[in-house]
């Protein structure tokens, strides 16, 4: 069928408008601004100074490394915690309950990070629910410090990101034919063998796309580290926020923003190479 050129442009122009004005140009601007500084006479000049700040000041690159290691750790944790759940819902739970269980998974996402993180603040506070419960059952006598620690920050990061792991994993597991597992079992494979040789390899595209989303969400998150983390917890996005909203060093902030985008993409790329996954396969 011959497609009309007129309709084609009617579709193309709005899409170009969206992508160019709100995705392409802003990122070019971000890139350019990151090389601009104001010299003593107030003129804007080209310079690498914003990037040099990152590498010369130990606190900045250490913060980035700390953030990246956390993001990798949380991504791994999200996989370990949610994989059994995804498996249970898709393979074990009866049809009657699986819809309801999936719905329950989605609700915290829609409620939004801010409200659920606030819930964790109430739970983990010194006079919060968890401490009260632990005192009530007699495990401790005085409240232990849970909130504003690396522990509470990890719980918050895991909570807000893990559901983005479970959904792609569930959609790959759904298409896994049960007879593959049955055949392996008939041939004498142990549970562990079935798990590592059949289920995990089959679910790999889902795990990989979940891992990419979780990693990027965690590394770019601000609310959980800011509200649940301690004073000493270093989080890279907080540096970006401070540069924009507190000290108004927009150009330094732009350089940090670009570094965050670039370095996190490099980490994702290296992880894909190491695990032998291809981005195209993950997307489908």
């Amino acid at each position, binding site marked *: 069928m011959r497609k009309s050129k007129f309709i084609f442009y009617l579709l193309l122009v709005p899409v170009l408008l969206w992508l160019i004005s709100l995705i*392409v140009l802003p990122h070019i601007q971000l890139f350019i601004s990151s090389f601009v500084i104001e010299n003593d006479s107030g003129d804007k000049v080209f310079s690498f100074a914003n990037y040099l700040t990152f590498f010369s000041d130990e606190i900045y690159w250490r913060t980035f490394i700390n953030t990246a290691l956390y993001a990798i750790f949380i991504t791994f944790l999200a996989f370990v915690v949610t994989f059994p759940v995804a498996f249970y819902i898709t393979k074990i739970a009866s049809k009657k309950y699986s819809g309801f269980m999936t*719905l329950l998974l989605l609700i915290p996402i829609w409620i939004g990070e801010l409200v659920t993180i606030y819930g964790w603040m109430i739970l983990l506070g010194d006079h919060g629910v968890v401490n009260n419960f632990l005192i009530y059952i007699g495990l401790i006598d005085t409240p232990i410090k849970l909130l504003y620690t690396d522990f509470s920050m990890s719980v918050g990061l895991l909570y807000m990101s893990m559901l983005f792991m479970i959904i792609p994993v569930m959609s790959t597991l759904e298409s896994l034919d049960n007879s593959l597992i049955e055949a392996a079992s008939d041939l004498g494979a142990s549970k562990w063998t079935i798990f590592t040789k059949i289920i995990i390899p089959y679910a790999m595209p889902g795990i990989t796309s979940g891992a990419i989303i979780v990693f990027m969400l965690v590394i770019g998150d601000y609310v959980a580290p800011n509200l649940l983390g301690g004073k000493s917890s270093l989080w890279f996005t907080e540096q970006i926020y401070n540069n924009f909203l507190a000290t108004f060093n927009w150009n330094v902030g732009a350089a940090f923003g670009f570094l965050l985008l670039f370095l996190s993409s490099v980490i994702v790329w290296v992880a894909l190479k190491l695990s032998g996954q291809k981005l195209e396969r993950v997307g489908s």
Partner: protein
Amino acid sequence: MINSLPSSPAYKIGFKIYMGLFYLFLVLPIVVICILAFNDSDFIALPWKGFSLDWFFANTDKRVGLFEDADLLHSIWVSISTGFLVALFSTIFGTIAAMLFEERDFKFKGFLYFLALAPLVIPGVILGISILMSSTSLGYFLEDNYNLSLEWLYPGFWLVVFGQFSFCATYVMLLVSARLKKFDKTLEEAALSLRATRLESIFLITLPFLRPAIISAFVVAFLISFSNFNTTIFLIGSDTTLPVELYTRIKYSSTPVLNAVSFMIVVFITLVAVVNLFVNRKK
């Protein structure tokens, strides 16, 4: 392992306990917020001091309830109107993008599709600062050179709408694309051979087929917009959205009125989710 294979009772029970613990972890923060919204106390903590609706309706020196708190109500209104406009724009542009990428072949299609998916992995912070910098510098440029002062290029209501639209459109595109993949092309061809114009065939055949996906994409875009913080915080002017207002209060002046707002959000979201489930069941 799966139901058709025998497994030990320990495995079955262990798995059930794990699932129970997981769902406890999932709902605990939400349940606790909702319960403490009705606690007759000035502080957001246990012990339970009795049931009270003060944090919804009171207006005294010590307690200002949700429905008496003008700032909070205003931020809810800002969030609703932002969410509505964002959902409207992203539904239109996202549907157009889905039709373009699903049905047409053209040069640079792969590259454009990559750009359209990029907001899924670009951290919200980056989207926020890049849109902030580009729009304000365009604003200054127009003001200096053409004496043109465009308010919507500076932080404020419209910049928030544009910023949230930039990534909500991607989600709409994916949802509509999924439905468009199931579309039977011969329907459109039949319409054309019956002398419908191409525009008529889109409006009378394709769009009605896509309607369920378009409606749920609209809801999804609204919800994403309604809860967004990371991008919004950079683009905001004097009209704060609900998440930004909540953040400021959690950080600097929290009272149980925050629980009351959160309770309303939880109820609203749950209702939308349940309605959505029933609508999908009917099909």
